[in-house]
């Protein structure tokens, strides 16, 4: 279990904004090992989004090296990055980003369309398995607008799982959800982490959510300010059970 999934070595990223150079990341180094559940915290302007783009292989660092599953992404071109994203990363977004008027099943199948080695039959089989993993198999023919926010996010998680990535990269995945649903999503994340051994990198600005992870990296002004293991990690299922049952339910 001790193989490095992520290896960041003095990552710097600067953007040219007109005549000024903006330094979004000023030297970020940390490693993430397989099976870890890491949250990345930070206020706006801390370089959180830039780091996320880099981790997601959507962007390349200006300086420093970033290796994902042993592959140095600085050496890859646009198409190779796309292939890497397809094979190694499962994205979960704040706004779910499901295709409208497309069934849950088809949404989950989508990443496999870009993987030429997967046949149509296998694609469907794997998509159903992923939906089962998020407990939405019975809703697979529902359109996104027929699903609640939490269910939509679970479809998105199934989509992130379907290509069996080495890392699930979540960007404020609970940002659009109420507390109860957020806990449900976090419970799912914890389950995927614990029982399936999935490596999860979860970007958030809520300390409440970060408490569910095993390790929190706090960014500030383009640098890692804190990188600590959560001693008293909370269990989302227990939290969920302890939530008062409101009148709405």
């Amino acid at each position, binding site marked *: 279990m001790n193989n490095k999934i992520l290896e960041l070595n003095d990552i710097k990223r600067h953007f040219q904004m007109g005549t000024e150079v903006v330094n979004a990341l000023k030297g970020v180094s940390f490693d993430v090992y397989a099976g870890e559940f890491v949250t990345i915290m930070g206020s706006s302007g801390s370089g959180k989004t830039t780091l996320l*783009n880099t981790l*997601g292989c*959507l*962007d390349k660092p200006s300086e420093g090296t970033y290796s994902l599953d042993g592959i140095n992404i600085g050496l890859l071109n*646009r*198409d190779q990055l*796309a*292939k890497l*994203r*397809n*094979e190694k990363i499962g*994205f979960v*977004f704040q706004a779910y*980003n499901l*295709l*409208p*008027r*497309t069934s849950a099943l*088809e949404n989950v199948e*989508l*990443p496999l*369309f*870009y*993987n*030429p080695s997967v046949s*149509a039959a296998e694609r469907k089989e794997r998509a159903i398995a992923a939906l089962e993993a998020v407990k939405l198999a019975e809703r697979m023919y529902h359109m996104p607008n027929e699903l609640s926010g939490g269910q939509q996010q679970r479809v998105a998680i199934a*989509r992130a799982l379907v*290509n069996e990535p080495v890392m699930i990269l979540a960007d404020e995945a609970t940002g659009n959800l109420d507390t109860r649903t957020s806990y449900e999503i976090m419970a799912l994340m914890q389950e995927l982490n614990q029982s399936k051994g999935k490596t999860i990198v979860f970007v958030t600005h809520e300390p409440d959510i970060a408490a569910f992870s095993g390790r929190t990296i706090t960014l500030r002004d383009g640098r890692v300010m804190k990188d600590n293991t959560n001693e008293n990690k909370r269990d989302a299922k227990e939290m969920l059970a302890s939530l008062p049952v409101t009148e709405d339910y």
Partner: protein
Amino acid sequence: MKLINLVLLAIKALQRNKLRAFLTMLGIIIGVASVITIGAIGNGSTISIHRSLSGLGSNLITILPNSNVPGGARLQGADVETLTFKDITAIKQHAVYVAYVSPSSQAKGQVINGSLNWPTTINGVNSDFLTIRNLSVQDGISFSERDIRTYAKVCLLGKTVVKNVFPKGVNPIGKVIRFNKIPFQVIGVLAPKGQNTFGQDEDDVILSPYTTVQKRIVSSIYFGSIYASAKSEDLSDQASKELTRIMRASHRLRDNADDDFVIRTQEELIKTLSSITNLLTYLLTGIAAISLLIGGIGIMNIMYVSVVERTKEIGLRMSIGARGIDILSQFLAEAVIISVAGGLIGIILGEGLGYMIFHLLKWPPVVNTTSILVSFSFCTVIGVFFGYYPALKASRLDPIEALRYE
């Protein structure tokens, strides 16, 4: 990406906005349908002209007198007196490519039967005339060589004349009618031919031996025209050249003198008329092709809107592993599917419409495979051409910006 996956993805994307896909298609549908319909009408009218002219006898060659006197008052062709029986004899003797020849001496006048009368034309001809003009005797008999020799006052009536000077139910055979006071015995009735291409009633005619007409009505030894028929349609040109030679010899024209006659073949007439309809067809097809082009621009426009509207989707697809080429091919496939589907519907619609028009005009149905193939490939080209730029734009989006696009 596999082609099947590409097509699947494109079809799924189009299905999400069926109405818009259909409306975009409509431009192509209308364009293709109009190209095909107009092409079919043009084709059909050419064939129909050919057919109705062939009805006159497709090997028909007409010799008309022509004034070659320079200066002075120019006379109308028919008033020029150059064609004589000598020419007929010469043609019969020397022509190799000519099967039949008949003089024609026409006169207008009033035909009278009892209290009924009718203005018509008497045409003095020989018995070959019927063959040359594809005419046949429906009732009675045609006139003989003997009738011609003896200036017999016998005639064949066209259906229109019969209808106008004989009461219903009366058999005209054997009856005597008068044409400009001269009595003629009716020996036969011609089978109806209807109107020709120029709207003339071909049944409004009386045929009589040319000798009779020349002597008793027009009082002239000259013919208004000579009709001949080539041995086959292909030999029309040779026959025409041969006739020119024979006529020049018969008229003893010097080498530097102009012809004092004009020879017209049916072939030329068909060519002239076809060239007019062809020109019209090309013109209209051109206009229809413009509508196809506008349909293509419609596709481009919608694809642009679609790329902007689906920026977030493009970002998502890129983040889950779509390469630029995958995005490009998907949008290109969408454009091609729209235009090809539109093309197919347009072809079916155009062919259906063409068939309906052909049915109404009683033209023989023709399926023009060329126009189908041309418009079909044109559609594909339009799809690729007008879909490429928006698709390229989509494929070049930055995934980070596309994902954050609102």
